[in-house]
């Protein structure tokens, strides 16, 4: 079942699109809350879904505002990471527009989803490593990732490449799991709801 691609690459600034943003911020927050204790963050699920279902620019806004929201509420250090979360929403949306994310269960689609996951992991690594290095000396805050980072440092690597490599390993895990969840959810949302969003 092929579906029609959404035609716009601009922010969905209808009142409906705006009203969706805080709800997707909420999904980002509860998703990262559900992931506590697992090896992943999953804090970009709402941004990805917003990017796929509404549009890339809305994914960007959801990602940025999620971290601004965290900054105002409970995490004084969340602000710089808004770039990372925003970039994830944007890129997920762009790939959805390019036809990489379809509502069909096939081998080809699983392959396409995997490609998006890898691209998202690269984007997340490139955007978050400079922040990790300048703020935390290269650490990420997940013990298993910091363990890998320490291993690279003990092996004689410099901080930036060691942090980038550890970040990539964690991001590829995080983005594969989170984006596959996003895609599975997207497939399960009845078409009529997706149409409501794109009306």
């Amino acid at each position, binding site marked *: 079942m092929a579906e029609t691609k959404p035609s716009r690459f601009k922010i969905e600034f209808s009142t409906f699109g705006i009203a969706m943003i805080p709800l*997707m911020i909420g999904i980002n927050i*509860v998703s990262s809350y559900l992931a506590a204790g697992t090896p992943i963050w999953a804090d970009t699920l709402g941004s990805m879904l917003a990017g796929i279902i509404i549009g890339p620019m809305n994914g960007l806004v959801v990602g940025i505002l999620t971290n601004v929201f965290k900054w105002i509420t409970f995490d004084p250090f969340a602000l710089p990471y808004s770039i990372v979360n925003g970039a994830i929403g944007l890129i997920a949306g762009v790939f959805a527009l390019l036809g990489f994310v379809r509502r069909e269960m096939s081998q080809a689609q699983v392959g396409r989803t995997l490609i998006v996951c890898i691209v998202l992991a690269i984007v997340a690594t490139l955007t978050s490593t400079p922040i990790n290095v300048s703020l935390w000396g290269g650490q990420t805050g997940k013990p298993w990732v910091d363990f890998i980072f320490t291993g690279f440092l003990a092996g004689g690597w410099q901080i930036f490449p060691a942090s980038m490599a550890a970040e990539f390993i964690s991001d590829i895990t995080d983005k594969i799991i989170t984006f596959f969840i996003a895609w599975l959810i997207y497939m399960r949302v009845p078409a009529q709801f997706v149409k409501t969003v794109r009306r």
Partner: protein
Amino acid sequence: MSFRLSFIARSSSFHELDPRTKLIIWGIIAVPAIASNSILACLAAFFLTVLLSAVGKVAPLYVKNLAKIVVPVFIPIFLIQGLFNPAGRTPVLFILPWLYFKREGIVFATVLLTRLLAVFGGGYLLTMTTRPGDLMASMQKLGLPLRVAYPLFSAFQIVPMIDSRLQSVKQAQMSRGLQLEDIGIVQRLKTYVPLITPLLMGAIEEAYRRSIALEARGFSSKVKKTFLRDVRFHGADLGFIVVTALTVVALSSMIMAVVPQPNPWGL
């Protein structure tokens, strides 16, 4: 779910300031901390934010909350950087003959910690002493469009609502036999789809209702919006900015004059 506002309601002269003033003060304090590699300069800047938090009557909470976040992160940072920082040369403390803390790594970690406190302290102070509504109003005065400010502001009501919906979805799915407790990581990740999908559909319906409610109140109207609580510059704002700027200049030049730069301990 650990969700609460940073904002602490107190009646203080610092709370009364225009949020834009606090933004400027944040900038003034952060500049020397970003520009210098001196631990003392960063500490002085952080000390200034503690002083300002005392003016805002939130000093104990301010220090406690920052420590709660920073301490657990910085113990591993001191360990990792002290032991393994690639720039480390000078031994300070031996654990094993081949494993020892090095001065360069400890200095790096200390500069990082003090700078982080100085740079983010001012921002935390801003969110701690500013009503979110006032922050939104002042951001709009700085040029943030309503269509970005509204979603952020309404998230304060909507995020707790989404969280309570998640609890209902959890109970509903558990009553249908979905296991949510005492399960492994893979099982937990699998529960995402049955938990988040209903949440998303509920969100789409909710957004539809809200967009009608917003339109009924003239959200898309082009006329200039007014605020229930207005933020304005007063004399006190200027006073705070001038005093902070002078203190920062005085402290920085004092440190530069007393401590030779650069020095081995990064002071």
